[in-house]
């Protein structure tokens, strides 16, 4: 079958279960396509030989009761994978090979999936274009020299380019949803506490969540149901009743009330984004749901709040990369000199910028004015959502204020780069689930996404809404394979 890599996860699972395809067939196909797709630079570490071995072993004794039987898949290089190098996109972890497995990836392998390799990402997940990676830019399969978004840029590129049938990313301020939007794929940021953070290289602990990135909503639901488990190894993991999300998926959203927040109509937002949003509202109505205008009054404070909270936590989380125990170490005259050289040479500029911002806002004399105030605003932002959810079941917004931009276009302007996350950041601050689905194209033919935000632990509801809309939108991603010679 030459079109193996064009198949969705759901189709591949079905074909393997029906024995129309073997794990080896599928694994080979994705490896071959990945080999031909080096120009995308989606991988940091390829684990193809080992993947093929595992596939062959699977086929010798296939367990077809599993949810991802013998399905190969690559993951963001922020997840620690046992015996496979894990870099977080950073020079400082360039030689780091974990002896342990993250809970999320462990859950995936337990369902029969096979690791293909580790996908490129912004350094320590800090970035919105994958340009901060020590391992270089990632190309967007949509067009040459177009960023795939970030920080899960390698993941988005790999799914859109069919280098992997599905993948996982992490989302601290939009790092799953924004690249999904930029590449015409589906990305879910689950409720905080839904997926274990154990074994994921930390960026901002109170915001980080792992989530699936897929070609369609059903695949997304299936992977979400696999990775969302309660984990006693993560103190912020929450023990709530989890669904069989893919089985319970329905396009019946009749009578649902969907909020349209007026504050998301930001100044300078391109008309095509506004038009897309209006189209989305129409789709919602076509599905038999109702839209209601709501207000989330503190929305405009979300970005500045995020850029205090996230760097503050990051500055502390990244203190462990000091050259003493593992990872990159520069030679120094003494301990302090070694620290300074290791961290100056080991971290890129964006990471250094955020460490400095974080250190500053936590400093005595500034703590109250920045960090403490940001925490208060964060509470207000959460209250906005709580208030809104008294009236509506979910909220619809654009995923991003623009489509994908060119590589290098925003690298000199961090603030304009940060603005990419304006619609996604409030969701992380409030700890809510959000899903981005492709909903149309801009004038350049680049994909645009819509975001459905849900109540905490109400992933089933937003998956259903996304599923219903997906059917109406009938989006077709324009992948020309331009990078394959």
């Amino acid at each position, binding site marked *: 079958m030459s079109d193996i890599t064009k198949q969705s996860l759901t189709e591949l699972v079905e074909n393997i279960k029906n024995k129309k395809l073997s794990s080896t067939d599928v694994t080979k196909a994705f490896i071959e396509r990945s080999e031909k797709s080096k120009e995308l630079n989606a991988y940091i570490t390829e684990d193809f030989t080992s993947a093929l071995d595992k596939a062959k072993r699977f086929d010798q004794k296939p367990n077809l009761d599993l949810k991802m039987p013998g399905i190969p898949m690559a993951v963001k290089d922020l*997840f*620690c994978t046992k015996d496979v190098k*894990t870099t*977080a996109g950073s020079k400082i*972890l360039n030689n*780091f090979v*974990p*002896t*342990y497995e*993250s809970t999320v990836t462990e859950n995936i392998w337990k369902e029969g999936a096979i690791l293909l390799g580790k996908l490129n990402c912004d350094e320590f997940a800090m970035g919105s274009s994958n340009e901060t990676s020590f391992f270089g830019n990632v190309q967007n399969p949509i067009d040459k020299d177009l960023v795939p978004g970030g920080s899960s840029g390698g993941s988005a590129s790999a799914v859109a380019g069919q280098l992997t049938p599905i993948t996982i990313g992490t989302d601290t301020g939009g790092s799953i949803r924004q690249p999904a939007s930029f590449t015409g794929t589906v990305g879910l940021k689950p409720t905080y506490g839904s997926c274990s*953070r*154990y*074994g*994921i*290289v*930390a960026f*901002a*602990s*109170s915001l980080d969540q792992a989530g699936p990135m897929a070609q369609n909503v059903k695949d997304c639901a299936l992977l979400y149901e696999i990775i969302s488990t309660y984990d*006693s*190894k*993560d*103190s*912020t993991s929450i023990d709530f009743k989890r669904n069989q999300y893919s089985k319970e998926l329905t396009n019946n959203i009749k009578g649902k009330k969907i909020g349209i927040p007026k504050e998301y109509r930001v100044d300078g937002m391109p008309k095509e984004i506004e038009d897309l949003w209006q189209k989305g509202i129409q789709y919602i109505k076509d599905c038999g749901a109702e839209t209601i205008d709501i207000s989330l009054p503190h929305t405009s404070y979300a970005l500045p709040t995020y850029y205090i909270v996230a760097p*503050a*936590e990051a*500055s*502390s989380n*990244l*203190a*462990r990369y*000091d050259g*003493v*125990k*593992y990872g990159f170490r520069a030679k120094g005259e003494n*301990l302090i000199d070694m*620290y300074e050289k290791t961290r100056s040479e080991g971290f890129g500029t964006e990471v250094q910028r955020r460490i400095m911002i974080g*250190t500053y806002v*936590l*400093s*005595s004399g500034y*703590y109250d004015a920045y*960090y403490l105030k940001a925490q208060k605003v964060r509470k207000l932002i959460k209250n906005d959502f709580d208030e809104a959810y008294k009236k509506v079941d979910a909220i619809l917004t654009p995923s991003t204020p623009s489509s994908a931009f060119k590589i290098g276009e925003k690298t000199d302007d961090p603030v304009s780069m940060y603005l990419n996350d304006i619609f996604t950041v409030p969701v992380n601050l409030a700890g809510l689930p959000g899903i981005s689905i492709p909903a149309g194209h801009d004038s350049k033919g680049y994909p645009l996404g819509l975001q459905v935000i849900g109540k905490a632990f109400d992933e089933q509801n937003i998956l259903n809404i996304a599923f219903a809309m997906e059917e109406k939108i009938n989006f077709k991603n324009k992948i020309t394979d331009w990078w394959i010679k």
Partner: protein
Amino acid sequence: MSKKNSEYLINRKDNQYEVIIGLEVHAQVLSESKLFSTSATKFGAEPNTQVSLVDAAFPGMLPVINEFCVKQAIKTGIGLNAKINKRSVFDRKNYFYADLPQGYQISQFKNPIVGEGKVILDMPDGQKEVGIERLHLEQDAGKSIHDLDPQNTFVDLNRSGVALMEIVSKPDLRSPDEVSTYIKKLRSIMRYLGTCDGNMQEGSLRADVNVSVRAKGSKEFGTRCEIKNVNSIKFMQMAIEYEANRQVDLIEEGKSIDQETRLFDTKKNETRSMRSKEDAHDYRYFPDPDLLPLEVSDEFIKDLKNNIPELPDDKKKRFIDEFKLSPYEATILVSDIDTAKYFEEVVAKMGKNKDMKLAVNWITGELFAVLNNKNIEISQSPVSAKNLAILVNLIKNGTISGKIAKTVFELMLDGDKDPQKIVEEKGLKQQSDPKAIEALIDKIINDNREKAIEYKSGKGKLFGFFVGQAMKASGGKANPQLINEILKKKLQ
């Protein structure tokens, strides 16, 4: 002694200075595993053999609170008569050091698990109350070893992540002696509770000592200096004495005292500046986002309260009321939980007709002397409580004299022998038959007629001679009281 006389003051020409001391005691929680990981905490293990991925701060590793350590901290809080906070928060204290793998220490800054409390000190001139400001839980750091190699520093992470309780006193202490009593009292309470073994040699208990001085009678506090990480009571006392005098000298010279952190050099017996207030670290405390606020229910606290053993203060009171001990005796017996246990076992084994005074004297006298000589704890005593009780009873019921008892006790030391058996085997039983003693005395008077006449004619000193002869004749076993009585009668 009046309170005034025992005041610890530093005297200079025309001025007297009072010393103000506050302690931050770091007590290692008695627990098999660490505060946020399951690694073992055994002392003296090979370097880096008790280190988990969490302790070594590997990427993606997360702390999970050890409930047992939380219970230990709350129990200690109860023992300090302190307020238990149902909600407390773990913060990160950020600083870089080679033996601090995370780059931060998880501690409790604004919201500690235990709030204000107090401990009572028994000083020679009466009781003194010392306020407790707070108790919080925190991680210990690893150990940097600088003297194994001329070029490199070695790091041992066995201690990294071990649970500590930091117990902060109010600035209520006024002398090195009070500090000594305070530390001993804290240690005693924690050993009763089983929350800290109090072993200062192994570093289970150490303290930062805050010292300031002020003119006697002044109400204002002076500028304080903090002496870091002092690990013996003797060194604390020496450091305070040196530091207080140093500060007084500065004041006398008209100089000012800089608020700073100092180190105590045990070899030179002096404190040295470590860093000034300006160089103080900015620890950038903030709530650890990997941990939720720690919440405990009323039931949880009540359960722990109900299972608190009798603590030294209550035990002392009971010993005084129930056993009619003097406060002094009671204080000695309760200060260490093992001594108290030993004493209570002796009391129990003595049965109905017991001589409490005698038991106390034997424990604090003969037994303590032996323990001291051998430099061992009472828990390793060569004489069991049961056998000591039998010995005391043998004296009490007149089977042996106090003098013979000392001989018997010596023999008991070898293998915890039953004193009853020793007395029987060696024939040491006291001769208490008046007729036999009378016969013995008759014979002595008969053999020493001249001396008897001398005595009767007024040479009273000779009485002792007769007693001696009688004892000698009985092989030391005759009841001395009976000898006295009968001799007096016969020599009239």
